[in-house]
């Protein structure tokens, strides 16, 4: 028996009515955001499902403006009494807040380009369907006397934004993710794929890919730390590029003076073949057509042929620079300011196979792990390789190597990229929920500074 109704996301008219009812309670200007998510995740380890969850969350976030003062409050209860209390809490916050001369005004009504983000099959995926997809991964792994751990998630979500200046924006969407790690005695292999339509994940094929990585990387040898030519798979490149978004492409960090781009806009920072844009409408991202202020998302070129070109804005940062917002506001109160959420790195003409073939001696990296900023001004980060690190010799995979620690400048890596892949896929970052679509790259003189025990 299926005890769940199908799509439960609030219909457009109902969302508009609810947000109007909140705004109608506010004394002055206000912005109300309705958030809803119905998400399920089937998690497995040691070849069996060990956690299996579903949650239905909803909330209204209210930003209320009184002159140059703003207060933010949120609630998950929508009865009249709770909505009155929500407005009262936001009003109290605003009234007690000192004036902020930098506060931008609310944006006006806009029209939004269509973006097909909702796939019914993903929203309605049942626990039985997820279990069957997991079984198709687990069975072949068991036959090889290996073990697999991973997760398959499916879900739908809704963002609706309204304000007292006439904005109303509504975007239902779905997302799915399959990731798994196949483990042999002393090696492992990993995959991670995302799609709005869960049927495109092809979990069985992904499982085979992870299994093959685990098999080929068995009996890893320790190679000494040092500078190596590396072939970075798509996810590894995305892990590095994401830091440019977090540490410098947002206009607020530039205005505050601590972006890596301060004093460098217009300068050549990477190799000429590197172009990075933010584009929520790229079908490979999981973007939405507007930001949390209801401003339409614009395509923004951040690095073009190696030259730093631009920043992303929300209304507050845009007002300071006297430019229009690019539609990159985050959920209020948003102390970090605007950030790029859908970075897309331009592709080249190579494949991972052709890059390996063109490498005399080097390291193939499936993914990086626990990456953190060391030197923000020079975009230096550190992290580890994980779950599929291979030695390349004479243009061929020569076996697995122990995982290694790197310390590298992201901009320098992009300046030393010799070859760029012709395909790119999305990496979605769990905590920030932003996406980076990146191709694989071959990079010379990549700086590994340590080796671990496995």
């Amino acid at each position: 028996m299926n005890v769940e109704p199908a799509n439960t996301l609030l219909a457009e008219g109902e969302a508009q009515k609810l947000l109007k009812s909140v705004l109608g309670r506010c004394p002055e200007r206000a912005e109300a955001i309705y958030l809803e998510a119905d998400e399920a995740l089937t998690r497995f380890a040691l070849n069996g499902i060990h956690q299996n969850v579903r949650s239905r969350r909803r909330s209204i976030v209210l930003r209320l403006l009184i002159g140059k003062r703003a207060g933010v409050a949120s609630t998950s209860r929508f009865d009249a009494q709770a909505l009155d209390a929500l407005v009262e809490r936001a009003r109290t916050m605003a009234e007690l807040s000192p004036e902020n001369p930098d506060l931008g005004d609310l944006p006006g009504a806009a029209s939004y380009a269509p973006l097909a983000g909702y796939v019914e099959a993903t929203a309605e995926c049942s626990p039985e369907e997820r279990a069957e997809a997991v079984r198709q991964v687990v069975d072949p792994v068991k036959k090889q006397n290996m073990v697999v751990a991973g997760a398959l998630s499916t879900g739908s979500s809704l963002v609706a934004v309204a304000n007292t200046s006439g904005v109303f924006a509504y975007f239902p969407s779905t997302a799915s993710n399959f990731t798994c790690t196949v483990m042999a005695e002393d090696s492992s292999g990993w995959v991670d794929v995302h799609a709005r339509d869960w049927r495109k994940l092809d979990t069985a094929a992904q499982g085979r890919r992870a299994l093959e990585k685990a098999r080929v990387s068995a009996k890893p040898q320790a190679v000494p730390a040092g500078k190596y030519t590396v072939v970075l798979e798509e996810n590894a490149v995305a892990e590095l590029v994401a830091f440019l978004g977090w540490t410098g492409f947002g206009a607020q960090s530039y205005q505050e003076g601590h972006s890596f781009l301060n004093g460098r806009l217009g300068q050549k920072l990477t190799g000429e073949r590197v172009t990075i844009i933010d584009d929520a409408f790229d079908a490979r991202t999981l973007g939405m057509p507007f930001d949390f202020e209801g401003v339409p998302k614009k395509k923004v070129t951040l690095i073009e042929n190696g030259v730093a070109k631009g920043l992303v804005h929300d209304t507050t940062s845009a007002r300071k620079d006297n430019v229009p917002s690019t539609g990159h506001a985050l959920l209020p109160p948003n102390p970090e300011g605007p950030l790029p959420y859908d970075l897309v790195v331009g592709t080249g003409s190579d494949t991972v196979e052709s890059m390996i073939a063109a490498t005399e001696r080097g390291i193939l990296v499936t993914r990086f792990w626990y990456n953190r900023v060391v030197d923000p001004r020079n975009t230096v980060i550190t992290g580890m390789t994980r779950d599929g690190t291979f030695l390349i010799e004479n243009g061929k995979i020569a076996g697995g190597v122990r995982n290694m620690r790197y310390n590298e400048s992201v901009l320098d890596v992009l300046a030393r990229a010799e070859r760029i892949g012709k395909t790119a896929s999305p990496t979605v970052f769990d905590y920030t929920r932003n996406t980076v679509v990146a191709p694989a790259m071959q990079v010379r003189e990549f700086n590994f500074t340590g080796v671990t025990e496995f």
Partner: protein
Amino acid sequence: MKDIAGRALDTARSRGASYADTRINEERTQFVEVKNGRVTAIADTSSMGLGVRVLVDGAWGFCASAEVSAAEADRCAAVAVEIARASGKVRDKATSLSHLPAATGSWETPHKTDPFLTPLSQKADLLLAADKAMRSVKGLKLATSSMQCWEDKKLFASTEGAYITQRILHTGAGIVGTAVSEDDIQVRSYPTSFGGQFESGGYEVIERLDLPGHAQKTAEDAVALLTAKSCPAGRSTIILDGSQVSLQLHESCGHPSELDRVMGWEANYAGMSFLTPEKRNTLSYGSPAVSIVADATAPRGLGTFGFDDEGVPAQRSDLVKDGLFVGYLMSRETAGGLGLASNGAMRAESWSHIPLIRMTNINLLPGTWKLEDLIADTKDGIYMLTNRSWSIDDKRYNFQFGTEMGYEIKNGKLGAMLKNCTYTGITPRFWNSCDAVCNESDWEIWGTPNCGKGQPSQTMRTAQGAASARYQDVQVGVGFRRGS
């Protein structure tokens, strides 16, 4: 609420669950931030919901909803059972839970002043005063002051008869000065990074920090770091201040001692652990100076509570005793596999998440040294303060940490200020090189408000009690371009 909880359990049982528990939580957060004289964020968020976790034929299911009603309790229980039946289709071994006497009771975080009753204007004024003092220092680019408090009203009930209510309060604040030159960005935080110091307690936690009184020195240090010498590269004796030892504990002892990681349950995400079962009671994790406990009863810690989210009473247990690795952080399910009982480490971020094995308060027991005596006892070394960057591999062996500031130690005296301090090592070798831990006078229970784990990802607030400690022959000065 009791009726709704009972309804969820009854429905789960009637649909076939052999065990069920439900949590109904009401969560509230207040956040205030001031940057360069402007109140840049002031927010009050609240969320309420229920979650039902069930075991059916030895397989787990969970369903949560933001609507707290009898009808929704029914629905969640039914969906959780349906999910559990699907789990059972890909599972060889049935889950069982270690024995737990059903607890009833209530618990509240001890506090003097409810942080949600302190007027917002008082909070903003305090941050603005700290901000003003920081900005009085010439050369400071950005002054950031912030405070946050959390309230979690929790109800836990189970089909075994447990019924527990708790009100947990976490409060804290901090300041950060950022100084920038053409090629450099330096930061200095007080009392520590990651937004400051957070504890179990009320507004008195923030008052005790005296942010305005420390603001000028914090900003002066940030500016001075721009022209300070860089940390040398090589091998060195290092003394870490208590806040940095706290994060070292968190990453290299707390996480690897989580038994779910050891068993492979987190292999695809957070990773596994080098502390495999055969190492319990045999591995020299650290030197005899190193004794570490998990203590959910310790005052003021972010891992302090009355009961965990499986209804297990808060307790203290040994992880490392006189250097020997002796114990894990456990749940009812994982402890049973070792023939043990849970030591109460299951915690959920919210009503919408299942509990996972999480750190409580991971405390390095105080040693015998006074900090000034330890520095005086060190001929040549580096004193490193306050975390700036942190990274560790997925089995928790190879780590690299950076600190905001350091000082040379020459012939038992602090020398020149150092910037860009980093150190790296392999966990058991590093802790075995620890030859001195400072005493109670330098010990603090440091809060970590941003610990991530799990799929879907969860954020947890944990604590690590620590004093300054000394480590020998450590590789330092990695990462930064030398000479910068």
